[in-house]
């Protein structure tokens, strides 16, 4: 489809959500394969998000602001992949809703120091039927963690791909993304 005259074709877009706790390496992962941009949201607080963990003591505040990093990968003139990082804690679930809607799939970026950060977002993607892979970010570049151990700790099923990665490394991040797209392809071929 052409856009406004002279503006060039309007690309088709695919959205991939990168979910992980603070410091899990979301921005690093996005920057390994694309230029990173940041946006912020001003969300009006809902009763659902008020009263959860860290929000104690901020009664009366009308909005909360969240930073989101995202990247754009132009595959060709007609296809663009957007990678959206989102915090993995439940109090940010209002962003998961928006980002998961229409997403091709998600990467749960797990930090072995804080595996529990990933539980809520894994539950969310499972309940919404959003295809996802778990990528365990090995910061030190050494694969000191066994994928099987992390799978047990996170209690993710065998059918969910789980791989170790280095979010700084372009090839490693490409492997994570191809794992996700391959999963979606398998789902498509199986009619799921």
């Amino acid at each position, binding site marked *: 489809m052409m856009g406004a005259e002279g503006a060039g074709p309007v690309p088709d877009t695919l959205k991939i959500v990168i979910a992980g706790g603070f410091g899990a390496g979301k921005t690093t992962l996005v920057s390994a394969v694309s230029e990173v941009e940041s946006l912020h949201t*001003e969300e009006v607080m809902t009763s659902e998000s008020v009263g959860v963990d860290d929000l104690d003591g901020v009664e009366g505040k009308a909005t909360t602001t969240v930073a989101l990093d995202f990247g754009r990968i132009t595959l060709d003139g007609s296809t663009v992949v957007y990678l959206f990082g989102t915090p993995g804690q439940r109090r940010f679930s209002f962003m998961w809703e928006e980002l998961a809607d229409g997403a091709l799939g998600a990467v749960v970026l797990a930090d072995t120091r804080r595996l529990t950060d990933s539980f809520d977002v894994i539950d969310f993607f499972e309940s919404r039927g959003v295809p996802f892979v778990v990528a365990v970010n090995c910061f030190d570049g050494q694969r000191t963690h066994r994928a099987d151990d992390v799978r047990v700790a996170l209690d993710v099923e065998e059918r969910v791909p789980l791989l170790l990665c280095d979010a700084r490394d372009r090839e490693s991040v490409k492997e994570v993304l191809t794992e996700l797209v391959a999963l979606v392809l398998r789902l498509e071929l199986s009619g799921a």
Partner: protein
Amino acid sequence: MEAVPPGWDPGQEEPFESSLIRPYSLTGGRTRPSRSDFSVTSQVVAVPSVSQERMDPEVELILSLCARPVSMAEVASRSGLPLGVVRILLADLLDQGYVTVRTSDWERRRPDAGTLRSVLERIRQL
């Protein structure tokens, strides 16, 4: 970038609290868009040669940012305005015929196997 709230640090991930008044003054206090056509990846393009009325500088900025197709997320990022405000202003601009918007069919249904294979191959080649 003046619309960025005071104390804003692009690198920070922790949420911070702020007043509704400042960002939403641009929307006349509205916190919801007039229509819900926009997702974060929706591609927005300014319509050329629409009569140039006098507009808020922020609105002119938004129109200049989408001279070529860009996502709503990119408009928010490059304007420094909060996503919620950009969504409302873009909905107004769409109502007024200043922009067109297209949300990919892939937001509504999964791409077919052939497309997915092609995407897979292109990611490998990055």
